[in-house]
């Protein structure tokens, strides 16, 4: 299925292809501040409809995950990283996807703070 999403102001818009069967909520130092509900997909399934450079990038700790956010409205629609096998992945913040019933998406809680 194809989903459309965006930040708040529209500077970043994207399409995601996949089956949205669940999302992850994490309590680590950045996730507890951002409150994202993350859906992990192969990076190739995320198609940015706006230029890549429209998003700012924040990294910390091991600097392996690129936390992308809109410099105009401050919304964090996605992140980019690599899975343990070396595959490029994206973490989509499903709060930025339109036309889904968020409360029906099962959420798994991840204790990132304990890592």
């Amino acid at each position: 299925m194809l989903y459309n999403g965006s930040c708040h102001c529209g500077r970043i818009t994207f399409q995601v292809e996949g089956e949205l069967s669940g999302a992850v909520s994490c309590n680590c130092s950045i996730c507890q501040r951002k409150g994202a509900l993350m859906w992990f997909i192969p990076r190739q399934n995320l198609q940015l409809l706006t230029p890549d450079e429209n998003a700012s990038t924040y990294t910390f700790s091991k600097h392996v995950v690129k936390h992308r956010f809109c410099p105009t409205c401050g919304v964090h629609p996605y992140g980019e990283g690599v899975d343990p096998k070396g595959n490029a992945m994206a973490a989509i913040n499903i709060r930025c996807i339109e036309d889904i019933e968020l409360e029906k998406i099962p959420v798994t809680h991840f204790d990132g703070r304990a890592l």
Partner: protein
Amino acid sequence: MLKTYNGRCHCGAVTFEAELDLTQQSYRCNCSICRRTRFWPAVATPDRFRLLSGQSELTEYRFNRRKNLHFFCKTCGVRSFGVGTETPMGKMYGVNLGCLVGVTEEELSRVPVTYVDGMHDRFEPPEHFSHL
């Protein structure tokens, strides 16, 4: 009971202190910006919020009627607080509970939450709110 808390964005450019009562209501809202940021504020009157650093590191975002000031850190994008200029309680600071330091998970889990229907401009619980 009011207590002074320290808080910061993720990268540390923005730091603040606020006097908050975590036994009082915090808020979650389903409006277009709160849905995306899952903003979870405790509220403070302006005299109970002090920005300690990072004024020049903040970007301000406004939309629609432009009455609410949404601030986030230019470096890490974290939204530590916002200012509502015409809330039902007057001008108030909304302090992101996720940005407080020295507060345990257990303490956060006990903060009462009121859900509001910002999508329809109502200060009442929306029909669906478990995802907020």
